[in-house]
């Protein structure tokens, strides 16, 4: 990778997260890569299309799915 890009990325991370040592930054990225590879290695969770889903609909769904509530 272009060293200028690595330097710019490091600077951006320090501005966002505060200065840390190279070991901490490497650990941070290792954890993220581990998470990403874990997600990519698993089959997608079937939820139906999210294209028109209102992201904040969870609270309403809890109310709607409570026993005795009209569906």
């Amino acid at each position, binding site marked *: 990778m272009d060293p200028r890009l690595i330097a710019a990325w490091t600077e951006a991370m320090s501005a966002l*997260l505060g200065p840390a040592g190279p*070991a901490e930054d490497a650990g941070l990225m290792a*954890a*993220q890569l581990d*998470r990403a590879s874990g997600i990519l290695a698993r089959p997608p969770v079937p939820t139906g299309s999210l294209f028109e889903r209102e992201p904040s609909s*969870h609270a309403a*769904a809890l109310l709607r*799915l409570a026993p005795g509530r009209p569906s």
Partner: protein
Amino acid sequence: MTDLCSLTLLEAAAAIRERRVSSVELTAACLARAEDWQPVANAFIAIEAETALATAARADAALAAGEPVGPFHGVPLAHKDMLYRPGRVTGCGSRIRAASVESTTATVLARLDAAGAVDLGRLNMSEFALGPTGLNHHHGRARNPWDPAVVTGGSSSGSGAAVAAGLAFGAIGSDTGGSIRLPAALCGIAGLKPTQGRVSRYGAMPLSFSQDCLGPMAPTVADVAAFYGVIAGADPLDPTSAAVPVDAPAPRERLDGVTVGVSSGWLQDLDAETAAAHEEAHRALRDLGASLVDVQLPDPLDLGEFSNIVAMTEAAAIHGDWIRERPGDYGPQVLARLRQGMVIPGALYLRAIAMRAPLLERVVAAYGKADALVLPVVPFVPPTSADMDGAAGAAGVAGAAAIPQMVAAMARYTRPISYLGLPSLAQPIGRSQSGLPIAMQTVGRPFAEAAILSVGMAYEVATGQARRALPSKPDLAATAA
């Protein structure tokens, strides 16, 4: 004479109401026991003895004067160090907020005050409620009264340890990914994570606004049910609280007509002792008349990862300024997790948020005729702190990479329920060969806390599985060894 601190919450309340014991006597007994256990359990961050005894004296005077009394009149309770009281410190188990004096009263504390409870003080917790084992870099971890080498579970670690050791008759905890259920399970008591929005969060430290819940922890399920009845319900001060009527659970001896779901996919990774305890619990439920049916649920790893993405992103967002400006004031594990949260892609976070409703619909549909699901809390007997926090405490790449794995192991079966926002009751179902608690969680439909508490109470009465009494003083020699 009966060991006063071995009473359950409801027994203690009845004893005061019937004037068999005074609030001052009970409070003094708890305070003395707390002092004796503190070197071992480290359950409290601050024991507020003077204030507690003064409150107890007022409670006794009110009872003597024939004034109306609440359901917990004069009963000593305690709270996790993340609930606000005017003029008092709420430290959030941290260094950063260690001297933070608040100006409001948390609604749950106001409701307990109105019920007549005596507040013994602030309980230990994972720093900023971030950690499933109870690790705390600043105050030291709360230690499991059944074996101090073993984790209490977190983040309501002091709440679990205090109730298990009989230092308080109940405690408020919080649960974002398992933080009530894990310490309840690992310490051998009962604990309820209510439905998202069921209990007001006003005046409570935030961690993840989408998933944070406050709830009761107490010696028995019956205690938890009464405790829940006091603190639950809509609150105009908390716009996220739900205006759904709070039903009292019906006490029942049998579970005829009740259908309980079990999910074979969520029972595959249990160790032998945990698996045997769950088989025995299923048998006991059948003996009570319940019908057990298999329910196919999504993989807990997927739901757990979505929960983690939501919680870590939201936590990082509210800690962003301190992460940059005061990184040295965080414990290493907490700082590493928060920094990881800062770099989760925004689209991934929003996708996890958007998937909550459809996955909740899918899971509730999978219930079919089931009134509740019974699931493990953790897949293994309570582990040692060295086992769980050792690798995750290492510096650099190895430690940072080990943290998500440790969290996923501890919260494998609790985070998915937090993500879905469903109510869940943790209660004891047995003991390991080494005497450590094993628990199950009973998960209900949204706002159906009464149904799962009713099942839990019937199970508790039939099996006798509830908190076991510990000695009034710890065995310091054994602990040192």
